[in-house]
């Protein structure tokens, strides 16, 4: 569904991606981890065609994003829902207009129908539909994040969801809700997802395969099992603080599977 072939990318003279290759299968969830500033957000922006690779190819649903024409690219984008790292809500629009953006943008849907849809999506991410008429500025960061997820979900039944750190800075309950949403979407709608996160426990819950990016290169790409056994120093030092949870969740996973 999504494929990176030896992708190089730099901002001006700053080399961010130095030959990155991986693929995300249809219906699977890829978790991307890595230290801050290694280019995880950049990776997602490349998938959306917001940035073009300097070398190599980014292929999304059979379309080479780097070469695609504007109209082709728009067709691809229509299949993708994106949750930006900082939410990127349109701050001149109300919460309702934000969530309903893709319906309003395409037009043709009566306004009360849009509102009903918006209420539905807000409820889905555990938000009170009463905030419909508020501006994003009036919400807490966690609420903004959830609105951003609702907005991405509302984007014309996306086939692919990209989440940029959807759970960072959230309370445990909300965090759980959001992780559940991601899992549910994947199970019910067989959505392909890419999740960037630092929260290893959630990562294990949502991910079917894991990728660790460091220094512009992929240092690990594989299953959770392989991750737990991985002996690459870079990966181990990155996972060190989480080793316990990692092992614990493995034992529980295994015992669950065993039963």
């Amino acid at each position, binding site marked *: 569904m999504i494929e990176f072939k030896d992708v190089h990318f730099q901002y001006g003279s700053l080399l961010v991606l130095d030959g990155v290759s991986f693929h995300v299968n249809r219906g699977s969830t890829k978790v991307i981890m890595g230290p801050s500033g290694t280019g995880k957000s950049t990776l997602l*922006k490349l998938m*959306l065609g*917001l940035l073009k690779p300097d070398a190599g190819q980014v292929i999304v649903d059979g379309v080479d994003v780097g070469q695609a024409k504007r109209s082709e690219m*728009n067709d691809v*984008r*229509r299949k*993708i829902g*994106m949750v*930006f*790292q*900082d939410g*990127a*809500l*349109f*701050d*001149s629009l109300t919460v309702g207009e934000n969530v309903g*953006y*893709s319906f309003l*943008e395409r037009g043709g849907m009566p306004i009360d129908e849009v509102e009903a849809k918006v209420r539905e999506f807000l409820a889905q991410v555990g938000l009170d539909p009463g905030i419909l008429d508020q501006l994003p500025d009036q919400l807490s960061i966690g609420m903004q994040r959830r609105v951003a997820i609702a907005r991405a979900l509302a*984007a014309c039944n996306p086939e692919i969801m990209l989440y940029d750190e959807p759970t960072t800075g959230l309370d445990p309950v909300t965090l759980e809700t959001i992780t559940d949403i991601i899992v549910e979407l994947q199970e019910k709608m067989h959505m392909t997802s890419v999740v960037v996160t630092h929260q290893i426990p959630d990562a294990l819950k949502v991910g079917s395969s894991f990728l660790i990016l460091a220094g512009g290169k992929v240092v690990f790409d594989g299953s959770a099992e392989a991750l737990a056994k991985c002996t690459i120093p870079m990966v181990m030092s990155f996972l060190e603080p989480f080793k316990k949870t990692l092992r614990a969740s493995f034992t529980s996973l295994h015992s669950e599977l065993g039963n």
Partner: protein
Amino acid sequence: MFKALNGFESRIKEQLLGLQDLTLFSVRILGLSVSGPFYVHDLYEQLHFMGVGSLHLVVLSTFFAGQGMAIQFVRELRSMGTEMYLGKLMVVAIVRALGPTLTGIVVASRTGAGITAEIGSMKSANQIDALIAFGTDPGRKLVVPRLLALLVMLPCLTLIADMVSLFGGSLVSVYQAHVSAISYWSMVRAYLTPENITVGMVKPVAYAFIISIVSCWKGFTTEGGTRGVGRSTTETVVICVVSILITDFVLTRVIFTWLGW
């Protein structure tokens, strides 16, 4: 020495590349603004923001600018005993020159700065990327409504500015030059010829292009967070004001040649 020269060279290169981008950007926007679909709601909002929002500033500044100009004229005219020509001079000075340019500068510093700040903030909050991700063309959604609104509103504001300045002139005429309002306005009417009005109304159209294209482009190319937004906003005002003054000169030359004056 070489290092300094190198820096200079790369700066020039950067400026030229910027100019090339700006040109491509203008061409693209012009293309978008003559073919739909249009964001009518956004256009309406911009018309309101630019027209109603700038009206008081334009009225206030041109009311006093008109009087200031009239006071100067009266002194010179009185020395020759030709105060009754104040109306004529006012039409030439205001309708042909000061009205459009002053309005352009006022609108550039209010609306132009506002546009850059808004789009620049959207850029640094990833909202532009979000628009694109939703399949919205930011050029269509953000730039075209602003360009069209300004193309309508700047000429309107200029007309109002002309009226207000001429009215300011009439006050000076009555109270300082002791020329009756009736003879002042009949002099004004006699010189409000189609040519004079054309000269005055071509300019705001050109200024509307300059202000909207430059301010949107500066917004889109904003980098570096809030400080970057501040920097691009200042640059917008500077570039717009200087370009307006240069365009004023060039257009005046061209139109005068065209009219055979």
